[in-house]
């Protein structure tokens, strides 16, 4: 049975979208040989769909995505710095440049400059903000600022970022590959029976509560870049951006799945001056079982490892002891059961794909792949369309509904104060019909909301 995750996936280990996106990137890179000449390098870069640069605000390159070496783009980094500082000398700040099909976005967050060159214009500014927060999550904002003050303007930040290339790269690919770049400020839930999710949440909460670890604030079960459950101490909340930073950390095999991990991580939206300590384990990733779920327990105290280790043990034992839950849970995690459009009922055949975002909970629900949007290219097209729609609705905030008829498919966008909905319909649909289908969709989603969304959070 084909694995299904948001956007579709063919391989079991594939987290879906970003892999397909990475494929197209690599294909172009294969053409590259020993590029020594600067012009050749730039010509090559021009062919790529996007390129991200991080440099110090005085021009030293720090990071370039796609496994490139910063040394290759040294003069380009200087140029970026010169552009940004030129504008600054006018008392202005450089935001973006557009040339033919290239969109270049700049972000100056002292002591760093971020720049992305992209063939796609959507929400590049947000993407750079997310990248900045990713860097902050590694160093904390205060350490980032202080290190230049302490060590001098010529400090090479790569020393402090050593070993994180992969982490930063995967952060970039994940937001690039997400169907809508809203996803960086939203999360999605693993579809589960509400009783299962409740059991999971109450188990996690009770174990964390019983441990009485003063400073342990959150417990999160993550699988396939989706959330199974979150529990929190009292009323502390964790921002979706911070959650996505955590998701990025625990996904994509950056961490060792066969050991327990104790990782300092700054969650900038919560507190950008200090670190959480994340106990991260994959209790069922071993030779006997292959359930790709990850348990993350967060504390502000660095000596809580042993306490959290105990908590994890208790959680795992209790979950495993409930055979029915555990079977359902394994199933839900291994082969996520995304929302099938056929669930809407009759006359839903014309709806090919949708993405629904709830504004208050910042949770996203995306439909399972459905013919004719099955192959990678087709799904990629669907993602692009949704991206463009969301960019459109961001640029025109008063836009409430949009129906676009095309020769190959139709687009339906509906934005309210409470939600945003992006749909792709077949080409023979009318606006009236699509509206009817959408109304049925919303009713259906509502009646199944416990399955596709995390409605209640459990506190301890």
């Amino acid at each position, binding site marked *: 049975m084909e694995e299904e995750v948001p956007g579709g996936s063919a391989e079991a280990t594939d987290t879906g979208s970003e892999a397909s996106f990475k494929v197209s990137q690599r294909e172009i890179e294969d053409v590259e040989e020993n590029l*020594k*000449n*600067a012009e050749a390098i730039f010509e090559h870069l021009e062919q790529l769909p996007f390129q991200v640069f991080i440099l*110090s*605000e*005085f*021009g*030293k*390159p720090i990071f370039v995505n796609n496994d490139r*070496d*910063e*040394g290759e783009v*040294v*003069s*380009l*980094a*200087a*140029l970026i710095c*010169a552009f*940004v*500082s*030129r504008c*600054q*000398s006018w008392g202005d700040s450089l935001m973006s440049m557009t040339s033919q099909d290239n969109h270049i976005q700049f972000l100056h967050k002292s002591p760093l400059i971020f720049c992305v060159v992209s063939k796609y214009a959507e929400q590049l500014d947000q993407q750079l903000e997310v990248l900045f927060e990713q860097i902050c999550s590694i160093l*904390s904002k*205060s*350490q980032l600022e*202080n290190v230049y003050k302490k060590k*001098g*303007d*010529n400090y*090479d930040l*790569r020393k*402090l970022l*050593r070993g994180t*290339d*992969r982490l930063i790269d995967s952060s970039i690919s994940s937001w690039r590959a997400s169907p809508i770049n809203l996803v960086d400020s*939203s999360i999605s839930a693993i579809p589960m029976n509400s009783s299962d999710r409740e059991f999971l949440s109450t188990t996690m909460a009770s174990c964390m509560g019983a441990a009485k670890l003063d*400073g342990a604030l959150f417990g999160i079960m993550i699988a396939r870049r989706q*959330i199974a459950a979150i529990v929190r101490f009292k*009323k*502390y*909340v*964790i*921002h*979706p951006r911070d*959650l996505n930073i955590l998701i990025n950390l625990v996904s994509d095999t950056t961490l060792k799945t066969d050991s327990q991990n104790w990782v*300092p991580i700054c969650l900038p*939206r*919560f507190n950008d*001056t*200090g*670190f*959480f300590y994340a106990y991260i384990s994959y209790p069922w990733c071993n030779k006997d079982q292959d359930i790709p779920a990850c348990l993350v327990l967060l504390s502000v*105290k660095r000596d809580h490892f042993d306490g959290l280790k105990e908590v994890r043990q208790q959680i795992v034992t209790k979950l495993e002891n409930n055979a029915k839950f555990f079977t359902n849970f394994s199933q839900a995690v291994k082969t996520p059961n995304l929302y099938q459009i056929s669930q809407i009922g009759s006359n839903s055949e014309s709806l090919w794909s949708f993405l629904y975002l709830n504004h208050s*909970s*910042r*949770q996203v629900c995306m439909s399972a792949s459905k013919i004719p949007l099955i192959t990678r290219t087709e799904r990629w097209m669907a993602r692009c369309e949704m991206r463009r729609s969301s960019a459109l609705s961001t640029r025109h905030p008063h836009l409430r509904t949009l129906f676009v008829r095309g020769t190959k498919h139709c687009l339906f966008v509906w934005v309210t104060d409470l939600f945003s909905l992006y749909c792709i319909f077949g080409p023979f649909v009318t606006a009236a019909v699509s509206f009817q289908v959408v109304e049925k969709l919303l009713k259906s989603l509502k009646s199944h909301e416990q399955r596709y969304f*995390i409605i209640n*959070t459990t506190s301890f």
Partner: protein
Amino acid sequence: MSGTRKKALLKVIILGDSGVGKTSLMNQYVNRRFSNQYKATIGADFLTRDVNIDDRTVTLQIWDTAGQERFQSLGVAFYRGADCCVLAFDVTNAASFKSLDSWRDEFLIQASPRDPDHFPFVLLGNKVDLESQRAVSSKRAQSWCQTKGNIPYYEVSAKEALNVEAAFLAIARDALARESQETNDFPEFPDQIRLNPNQQNQQNSGCNC
């Protein structure tokens, strides 16, 4: 393995009056010429050169500045973060030699390095192939260098870029030596997050999940 050491990157600024021949010198020297067309508009050309010291490669990011008045307002961003500053003058042009003081001072003001007395400068005296027109003697240049903290001096010409290479090798070697002398001064991990009860339930910062 990820995490292996990367090449050292050094930012090198070239300062000096326009007309001293910086550009043709640099063009001889660099292996990756980005472009010569930015100087007139932005105020600098950006060049790259890799040098090898023992088993290490150092990439030099060379900011070949325009040397004209109107670009001096860009000083701060251009000059700050530099690992080294190369001053250039034309040995056949005494005025260009006299400007050196103000170039050096300007640089130190704009860049504000942490240790201005020991900031690495290098002096290049260009156009030594025009010996008959020489207006500044080697001795005079060297004594200036000595008064400024023993700045190394290299005489160069576009026809023979060898000494240019020696100058940059010296820069790279010096920078690497400084790096290894750096005290083992590791960043302190920030103190524990102090939890603020008011942080709970902030509507705009969290999802209700």
